[in-house]
């Protein structure tokens, strides 16, 4: 006769395995059988049962429950777990001394085989299938983007024709959130960009005694490229993600469905005001970023002995109004793309809290990819046309 050792020294064990011979064994339960006291003991009993079952056939196990002071759902699951192993091995199982009030609960789970489902085999996808599926996803995504662009264009045209029906309240809220509230961060980052750009350029140019050309160089780079780009990336991080999360939460809460079933177009209602806000704030923010960057550059060059007036004259010679307007037009395009992509990702949100997070992430990533694309196309056009 072997008796298993108690698992915890502090508390007496709630279950003890004892075996009279190869064919007969007994589990004695005692005290409070619950989800905490079974920890460890359960594993121990099951290990003993397995070892015993390996010894021979037609074995009979008795579970003595007469000394139980309390039993809860976990205790019942334990009984079922032991019984199932016994059933599978073709052995006998009997519970003796179980209080009548626990019987109905045990019966609830008949037949217990339902509680032990056969684990489903997940079919492994071949390389070709998964490649095909990835390609299909890409095509679906592109199709979604094109459809959305079409709808949005139509609704933007509609909003010009029905200017009074646009939700100007939402537009103002979005413009304040994406524009005015973005001023500090845009200012900070563009100041830094102005300093770094001119400082790095000055180090190189100094070797040739050409510090005086840093001003025109930095100013041109800022108004044509850096200003719009930095502002757009900041807008993508702040507002595109915010639009996606906002519309995504509305999608999760069926608010978008409520608009559709009420006969309203969610694009007209939710997307148009936000895209219009993007169109308004991007050029303004960009102009602001240009000015801050150039001021930062001026101060940096002052440290290299270039007075403000020299910087200013050099800049006027290099930068003309076309450069500035080219940057601002590009910024406007970025504004459309960033706000529209944020809204699109919001509308594509699945279900659940995690889906909103995924949408916000996708909004930022897609916005930045689109910024790069638009910038590339714009650079090509301006190179060909000289604008």
């Amino acid at each position, binding site marked *: 006769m072997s008796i298993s050792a108690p698992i915890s020294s502090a508390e007496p064990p709630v279950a003890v395995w004892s075996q009279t011979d190869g064919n007969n064994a007994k589990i004695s339960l005692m005290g409070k059988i*619950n989800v905490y006291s079974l920890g460890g003991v359960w594993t121990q009993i099951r290990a003993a049962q397995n070892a015993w079952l390996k010894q021979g056939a037609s074995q009979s196990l008795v579970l003595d429950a007469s000394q139980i002071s*309390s039993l809860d759902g976990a205790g019942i699951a334990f009984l079922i777990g032991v019984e199932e192993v016994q059933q599978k091995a073709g052995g006998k199982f009997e519970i003796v001394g179980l209080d009548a009030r626990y019987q109905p609960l045990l019966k609830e789970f008949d037949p217990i085989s339902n509680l032990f*489902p056969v684990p489903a085999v997940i079919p492994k996808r071949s390389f070709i299938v998964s490649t095909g599926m990835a390609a299909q996803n890409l095509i679906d995504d592109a199709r979604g983007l094109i459809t959305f662009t079409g709808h949005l264009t139509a609704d933007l045209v509609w909003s010009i024709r029905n200017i009074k029906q646009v939700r100007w309240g939402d537009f103002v809220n979005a413009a304040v959130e994406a524009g005015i509230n973005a001023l500090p961060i845009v200012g900070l980052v563009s100041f830094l960009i102005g300093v770094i750009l001119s400082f790095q350029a000055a180090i190189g140019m100094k070797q040739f005694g050409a510090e005086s050309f840093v001003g025109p160089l930095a100013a041109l780079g800022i108004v044509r490229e850096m200003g719009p780009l930095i502002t757009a990336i900041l807008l993508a991080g702040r507002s595109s993600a915010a639009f996606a999360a906002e519309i995504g939460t509305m999608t999760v809460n069926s608010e978008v469905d409520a608009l559709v079933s009420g006969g309203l177009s969610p694009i007209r209602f939710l997307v148009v005001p936000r895209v219009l806000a993007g169109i308004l704030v991007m050029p303004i923010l960009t102009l602001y970023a240009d000015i801050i960057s150039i001021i930062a550059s001026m101060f940096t060059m002052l440290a290299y002995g270039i007075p403000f007036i020299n910087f200013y004259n050099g800049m006027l010679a290099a930068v003309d109004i076309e450069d500035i307007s080219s940057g601002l037009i590009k910024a406007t395009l970025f504004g459309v793309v960033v706000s529209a992509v944020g809204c699109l990702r919001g509308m594509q949100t699945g279900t659940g809290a995690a889906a909103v997070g995924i949408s916000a992430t996708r909004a930022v990533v897609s916005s930045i990819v689109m910024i790069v694309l638009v910038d590339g196309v714009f650079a090509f056009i301006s190179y060909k046309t000289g604008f």
Partner: protein
Amino acid sequence: MDTTNNNSSNTTYAIDVQNLTVGYGSNVLMKDLNFTVNNGEIFVILGGSGCGKSSLLKNLFGLYQPLAGDVLIEGQNITAAQGAERQKIMTSFGVMYQQGALFGSMNLLENVTLFMEEYTELTQDQMDLLARCKLDLVGLLPYETYMPSEISGGMQKRAAIARAMALDPKILFLDEPSAGLDPITSADLDSTILDLSKNLGITFVIVSHELASIYAIADKVIMLDKGAKGIIAEGDPKVLRDTSTDPRVHQFFNRIMSKDVA
């Protein structure tokens, strides 16, 4: 842990509410509430929409701090408890929220096993079996691998009850468990609640509007009223229905329209 159904030791109530004031800031919903819930009792909180039933419930299980007063859970003051002591009280009960509040990134089985993973030393297989038992009790066994977003609202509520029972708590707080369920599922749920109460001695504190369900399961009800900012009726629901002279109580239990009272 006393799981017997007799309340011979009346010195400790499952829940003892003393001079509890419920509200938000200066907005007082309920003033000076006093009531007790016995061990193994099915206790139902009633009242019209917006009278503060759910807020009261959240004060009872310590999610919100009451404006004044104390809540004793099995003799321990949850209002004053801090840190590890508070956590210990928190594991002695389970909560089902009105909207289910299942974790969206986990399937139903994982939702139920989550608290077991944190608080017990069971193995994954053992926890899975336990969780399946809980899901079986609420009739959701075939759906264990489903995500919460893939099942209906009523099923989410039932899954939330299964999760609340994960650690076999002695007290279960259910916020409108049968609202939105079909009559058959609702009746099944009532019978599960009765079974658990009778056989395992679990105490239930339930917020509910469903009169049929209340008559079927409630040992004791309290009825709250927005105007009175307190309890206007207390006792057996059938007795209240038949004998109460308070027009508000009479109206509630007999489903009389407001315009017919005025």
